[in-house]
């Protein structure tokens, strides 16, 4: 390899160590981030592993191990048990037609109105007010 042009070499000589350090840091950054992520993930997974017994006991008391992430939609709350018999499902594990996979929100206000018409209510009596 030929030497660098002298003008470039002279101009950048004083800043060269800093620039080389910056370049090295930038090139190594994905690996450093991956390492930090791996360490953090390892700690979090170890925490979760310690909770395995509690989770196992709880799940043995629940109808399904499906995640509680779609409580509003009956056909999504326990997809493993409800597909394909659930409403709006054309096949096992089909894409959610409403609403997780779509852009339109479920009509919860309409459902609330409908439910109110049937006098479905929930009342809470706080323990603090009990004698």
């Amino acid at each position, binding site marked *: 390899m030929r030497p660098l042009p002298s003008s470039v070499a002279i101009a950048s000589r004083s800043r060269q160590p800093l620039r080389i350090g910056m*370049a090295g840091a930038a090139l190594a950054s994905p690996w450093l981030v991956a390492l930090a992520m791996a360490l953090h993930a390892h700690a979090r997974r170890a925490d979760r592993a310690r909770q395995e017994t509690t989770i196992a006991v709880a799940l043995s008391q629940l109808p399904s191990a499906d995640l509680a992430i779609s409580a509003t939609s009956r056909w999504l709350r326990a997809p*493993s*048990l409800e597909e394909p018999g659930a409403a709006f499902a054309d096949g096992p594990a089909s894409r959610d037609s409403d609403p*997780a996979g779509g852009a339109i929100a479920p009509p919860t206000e309409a459902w609330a109105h409908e*439910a109110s018409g049937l006098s479905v209510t*929930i009342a809470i009596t706080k323990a603090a007010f009990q004698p």
Partner: protein
Amino acid sequence: MNVHLLAFAVGAIGRRKARALAFAVGLTAAVTLLAAVVFLTESLRAESERSHRVEPDLVVQRMTGGRPRTVELADEQLIASIPAVRSVTARVWGYLFLPAIEGNITVVAAAPNDALLHRTPSSIEPSPSTAHAVIAEGRHLRAGEHEVVMGAELARTLGVQPGDELRIADAQRTSHTLKLVGTFHSVLDTFTADVVMCDATDARALLGLSPGQATDLALTLSNENESSVVAREIASRMGSTRVIERHSLARVRHLAFGRRAGLVLAMSLPALLTLLVLAWDRATGFSASERKELAIARAVGWSTSDVLWAKLWETLIVACAATAAGLAFAYLWVFVFGAAGLRQALMGWSVVYPRTPLTPAVTLAQVLGITSAIVGPFAMVSVGAAWRAATRDPVDLLRA
């Protein structure tokens, strides 16, 4: 390789800050979005699959007109007589819409310990104390005393605490007064966020089931490899039924998360492409000052190889830093800040979202895959553009 070229590349980035910044911001945004979807999906999938081992070998539902209906308790005896069946549990559970939260809660009947702990690790002996281990605040319910326990997130949403009384009306306008005696441990929120557990009598009353009815039957087999044979036998004995095998439950979840992730990525594709095109344009197009710099370098004796290395380092420095920033932002977004915004798209639609921090399940291969998918093409494109410029006559380059 000459380390001086690294310093030159950093200097070149400094001389064209705005260009490098536009390139880096585009790449960072694209990596953040891509990595966040992968991180969240893998985390949910792992959480879902972690629970697979405690599920029953078979679940039996009655079907009428293509829809599930309740099973009769007499069906329990019909199935229990099949030789390979070790235990049959009639489960009572269902959904109840609460206008107060504009969402459904999942009502589950707590079954006796000896009937339910059939798949828990062998080290755990079924006893009242094991059932109590899942309760963080208060205690577990006692059968016959109209008591409930519920998910911590649901209790927070309703503003109740152990000791409070709830009056819940069913669809037949009958009110049921139940006392909240405990909440599930918050580490279980992913599974119990919307769950209200009571005894079988209260659950049947809330769900409108008669004493002889149950929602479905959960079976444990003496040999789980015989599940297909037993499923066929059940179908022939009971007629219109749906028998779900354990591996089918896992498959549904695995596919569901994959499809959701794919859909989110597909919806984000226009934005992702725009960012990549912007970054691509910045990587391939040479500005007048850059052409001048290359022409001078060539005129004073730089070889084509020097020019290529300098441009390659320039691209790699920016692309690596942007990718690292994107990965870090995505990780923080999903696992520290709870994937605000993205969670709703990938985690269904709920009013009672579990707040439990997700457990990272991303592998090194996935991180390397994302990094190489972003950095690789940009490095190749920048080298191609530099090759075209470096092989031209310096005078032509200055006039271009």
